[in-house]
């Protein structure tokens, strides 16, 4: 039997993180869950272990504490084969317009932390000569909109970072996957009215991530394919009209 591969899931208390980790565990992977709230992460770890019988460990990580990333990567029992980062914070756009602490939190949580962490793993993977990096970005990063451009700008930065990293690592045989889930029914979107056709369940996102990262070899995925034409249409509206739309 092949020795099982290792997944590091960053954002282990989120619904997408839980679903993705469960999908990998069902495929026989050993799972490391990283999260700020260890108690909540342990709840998910116990659940995945009970459902699949695979080994799951919990590792404390604060995505804003970039100074701790180096010691975090060194402290892991095994250097993972795949890192999936699902960290994200929708936040409050209106609040961030005047509250600089909140605005900075959104930019750092959605861009700085995830990008720097994956960048650090990229160096470890280069040294080893193998590894896959998966970043969960957002359709909100495809074009800035008045209702969520702090979040959107950070995700746009993350998307660009992943694209650049992929460009650099591809010749070395390392993979970088960008995931744009679209709307997902999670705690983050609880209470919002979401169009059913455009809204994925967390399990769908987990399945799509596993398929792109471990099977199909695709670089950029929208979880529900319908998002590709939708975002293409949104992207093609000339700015002089777009700026007048209420989005």
């Amino acid at each position: 039997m092949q020795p099982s591969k290792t997944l590091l899931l960053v954002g282990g208390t989120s619904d997408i993180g839980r679903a993705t980790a469960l999908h990998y565990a069902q495929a026989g992977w050993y799972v490391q869950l990283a999260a700020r709230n260890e108690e909540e992460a342990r709840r998910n770890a116990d659940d995945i272990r009970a459902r699949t019988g695979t080994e799951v460990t919990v590792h404390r990580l604060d995505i804003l504490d970039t100074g701790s990333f180096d010691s975090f990567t060194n402290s892991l029992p095994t250097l993972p084969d795949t890192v999936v980062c699902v960290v994200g914070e929708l936040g409050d756009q209106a609040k961030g317009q005047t509250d600089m602490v909140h605005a900075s939190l959104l930019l750092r949580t959605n861009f700085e932390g995830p990008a720097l962490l994956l960048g650090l793993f990229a160096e470890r993977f280069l040294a080893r000569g193998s590894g896959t990096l998966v970043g969960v970005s957002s359709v909100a990063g495809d074009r800035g909109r008045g209702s969520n451009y702090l979040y959107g700008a950070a995700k746009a930065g993350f998307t660009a970072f992943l694209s650049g990293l992929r460009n650099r690592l591809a010749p070395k045989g390392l993979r970088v996957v960008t995931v744009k889930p679209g709307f997902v029914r999670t705690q983050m979107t609880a209470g919002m009215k979401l169009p059913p056709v455009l809204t994925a369940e967390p399990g769908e996102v987990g399945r799509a991530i596993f398929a792109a990262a471990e099977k199909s070899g695709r670089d950029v995925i929208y979880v529900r394919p319908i998002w590709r034409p939708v975002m293409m249409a949104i992207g093609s509206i000339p700015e002089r009209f777009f700026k007048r739309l209420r989005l």
Partner: protein
Amino acid sequence: MTELAGWGRYPRHPSETLSPASPKALPSLMASRTGLVARGNGRAYGDAAIGERVTLMTQGLDRIRAFDQATGRIQVEAGVLLSDLLDVVVPRGFFPPVVPGTKFVTIGGMIASDVHGKNHHRDGGFGDHVESLTLALPDGGVVTCSRDENPELLSATIGGMGLTGTILDATFRLRPTETGWMRQTTTVARNLDGAIRALQETSRATYSVAWIDCLASGASLGRSLVFAAEHATRRDIDALRPGAEPYPPSKLGSLGVPLELPSFTLNRLSVSAFNELYFRAGAVKSGYPFLVHWNPYFFPLDGISSWNRIYGRRGFLQYQCVIPTAQAQAVLGSMLERVSKHDNASFLAVLKQLGASHGDLSFPLEGFTLTLDLPVSDDVFPLLNELDRLVVEAGGRLYLAKDARQSPATFEAGYPGLSRFRDLRRAIGATDRISSRLSVRLGI
């Protein structure tokens, strides 16, 4: 505010809903509100899981906490669905000790309703198998309940319809099985007397249930198919279906009921045709044991998603009563007679034997339970009031998880444990804080 209803889609009430993401977040939410009750997957038929003002949604409490494959002991949060649990444990050679007629219920709901299965006559209700549970009390306190710790609170919570607090998690033991198949034997009973006798004769079987043709009358009143079953062994597979996979994949029928059908779709003719078909299909297999997948044996209606919509916009009532053994035949016979004369035929009529139960408000008692589905209409209420009278006279009772309309008097007559239950609610401060539409309607 959201409009909430049970599975029968009658009645509907507005309620505020709160959705805690974890068991840790729930107790403080409870302490901050009054007039609330927890809701699992909303499969109670009537108004049991609609808060008087606030309804606590428990879907976020869906983690399995521990599963010991050596002993079969499992600890789960209260919002874990039975369907989810089955997917995890059946392929590993285990089965829940008791399952109700649908797998789309939460473990918390199964305890709060002390659900019974086709094995109640032998194995008791689900509550009898709970080793311990964690309960969030009305004041936000959290306690463990087991046979040794807070036993009074445990027996009030089992079957207590969520009115003692909110169950956060529970620990129970699964039964080991050799395969995922059931060895079923079907017998035809020509009338009610025959059905009751057949159920008594098959009471040595682990599982047994009778499907009654409600439209048969006269000498065939109560004609039934009686399904008895055991968990199949490896040897059963070799004998009855050699080469079959021991744990067949769980498949679910994809046939759904997409829209609300107009009420006239289910009239006497279509129901009669359905029953005739059902009888012929059953009669073919009569007498010989055969193997059937656990899923259709235990959950035949789960294959049709949203089957509750076939009764149309006004919704339907599920009427489930239990009649003590000595009077079962006479009383159930006269109930069936009244129902068969009624224009709104019952689509589904199920007869089962029950044993005693132990929760203060648990439904089962030694006797026979009859379940009928009736679409809501103006003349169905007088019919059911008449049936209630027969139930009360016979010393029987109605199942709270199904109830949407019984009177406080009928309820009080059927549940002698009520005063103890009320005392306990007063003692833990639940009386003014935890209330569902059902508890308000019945004065619990």
